[in-house]
């Protein structure tokens, strides 16, 4: 039982990271209708930027905030420079551009910071949070920081004018443009925020998986799984999906005998495919109704 609890909590901690990634994916999906396959590499690159700042002597939280800012600007820049010209290109071309971005960022990070595995500091420490060792301080910190981020985003989208404008731009670009919202810049803003969110996820998970150019690959996949499980049209669902995937992943790895460890990722993915074939738009997605 204690093992079970322990695994659930560890799952929630990694789930928090998946939730951040899932939310970042949903934000870009809402804007351009495609899964951002380069999201993980963007997050990885941001994490390296944070690491570099710490090497230059910035304190952890200073580097943390600076990285978020840099990622935001970079996200906006990628949208403006790479995607804006291809706005009307078919979705398949968008996917290929993401693959190209993936290759560029991955290889550039490897070139600048090489492929050796680097430790990444945690501001929370690795000791257990309480005496019984049920949850480590870093795990608790991961959950806390993620939840704070998610709450901030919720407030932003729910209660600010610009948040409302972004939602309008995503849900109905034509009408939004007619009421004077600059849809293109709203989309770019969404990209910036997704990049920042990825940066947070990257910096929080880096102490666990260590820093190297391929660190975000499986995390991105779990993020996708979470986003799809919750429904790509529903940000809150995507967050919940992220947590669920984290827990499932941990439990499958621990409790399914024989193949659990080796096939942790396939089991999680198979589960998602199963969920999808029962509920094709995710658990909380809205059904798309089209007028004929």
């Amino acid at each position, binding site marked *: 039982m204690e093992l079970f609890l322990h695994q659930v909590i560890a799952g929630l901690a990694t789930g928090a990271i998946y939730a951040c990634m899932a939310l970042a994916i949903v934000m870009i*999906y*809402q804007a351009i*209708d*495609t*899964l951002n396959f380069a999201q993980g590499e963007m997050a990885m690159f941001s994490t390296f930027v944070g690491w570099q700042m710490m090497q230059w002597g910035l304190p952890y939280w200073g580097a943390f905030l600076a990285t978020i800012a840099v990622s935001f600007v970079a996200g906006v820049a990628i949208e403006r420079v*790479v995607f804006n*010209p*291809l706005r009307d*290109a*078919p*979705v*398949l*071309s968008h*996917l*290929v*551009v993401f*693959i*190209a*971005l*993936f*290759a*560029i960022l*991955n*290889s*550039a990070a*490897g*070139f600048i910071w090489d492929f050796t595995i680097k430790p990444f500091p945690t501001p929370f420490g690795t000791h257990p949070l309480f005496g019984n060792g049920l949850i480590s301080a870093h795990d608790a910190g991961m959950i806390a920081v993620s939840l704070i981020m998610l709450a901030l985003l919720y407030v932003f989208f729910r209660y600010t004018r610009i948040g409302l404008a972004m939602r309008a731009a*995503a*849900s*109905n670009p*034509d*009408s939004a443009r007619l009421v004077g919202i600059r849809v293109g810049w709203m989309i770019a803003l969404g990209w910036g925020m997704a990049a920042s969110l990825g940066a947070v996820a990257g910096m929080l998970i880096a102490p666990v998986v260590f820093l190297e150019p391929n660190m975000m690959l499986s995390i991105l*996949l779990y993020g*996708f*799984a979470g986003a*799809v499980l919750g429904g*790509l*049209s529903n940000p809150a669902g995507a967050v919940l999906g992220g947590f669920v995937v984290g827990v499932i992943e941990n439990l499958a790895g621990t409790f399914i005998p*024989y*193949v659990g460890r*080796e*096939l942790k*990722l*396939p089991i999680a*993915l*198979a589960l*998602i*495919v199963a969920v*999808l*074939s029962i509920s*094709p*738009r995710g658990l909380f*997605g*809205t059904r*798309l*109704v*089209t*007028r*004929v």
Partner: protein
Amino acid sequence: MQKEATPTPELQAVAPAVDLDSVAHDAVLPIAWRRVAIAVALTVALALPFVLKSFLVFQLTMAMVYAMAILGLNLLTGFNGQLSLGHSAFFAVGAYTAAIMIENFGIDYYWTLPAAGLICFAFGFLFGFPALRLEGVYLALATFALAIAMPPLLKATPLEPWTGGVQGILVTKPDAPFDLPLTSDQWLYFLSLGVGLLLAVAAANLVNSRSGRAMMAIRDNPIAARAMGIDISFYKTITFGVSAFYTGVAGALSAVVVNFVAPDSFTFVLAVGLFVGLVVGGVGSITGALFGGLFVLFVPNFAEQISKGLAGAVYGIILLLLIYAMPSGAAGLVRLIAHKLAARRR
């Protein structure tokens, strides 16, 4: 998708994630010119293995193998509108089928091609059923999951007596039959050329048939297709099967050509590579598959030659430039140029 339903029906017809411009039928060149072009291309293809170095012949063979897999993917994505990022899985099943048949059962390699194709057809057909319920990116993700799951499955302990686990299987390289004066590489080149032509002609006929038109109608507007009496589930699952058949045959050929199968040759990187080849070659174009195959094989090598450390970045930049320069793929570009030339002559 919270997006409002698109207001105009014309726009809705474009909803499937496929570039429709590139699917226009290639009636651009006059028939006589096309015959000449095909004859020249065939002559060159037949002459190449006698003038090139054997490693280059091997590479061209692999490019043709990839082209076949891309052709299969094209039938699914380009002509039926179902997105797949998981075709490496079918490629792997084909390759392992061939390797196991040859090494464990001592069956001749040429029998393995249809066998691998049929087994993949069954897999693809079955996978087509859950795929029926998924659309667009959801399907892309589900198939991507398939691609991710394949290498660990091949490595899994229970299957090890068959698959050889992480080690994979060594396959003996076949010699040219009937005492033909060809090296093994040359023979495999001609074999792949023959199989590839057969598959390409079959695909062209399929696309131009009643079934092909049904496939494309489903891609363009599923609701209208259903209203015309097309059995959507039937055509979608069968197309998935046929697509997997093509990719499986390509996989089997690759096992024979490379002489080796191992789980790590069939990761999602291969799936993504095939997808990139599809888009770069031209979605919905049968000849485009060959461009795609050449791209998949040669561009990564080329990128590595330019810069070892930044090979990935060079590859990515080439890819970006290609998408900017020819959004509808190489086949689309050729078609565009042909159009321009034809217009000038008039």
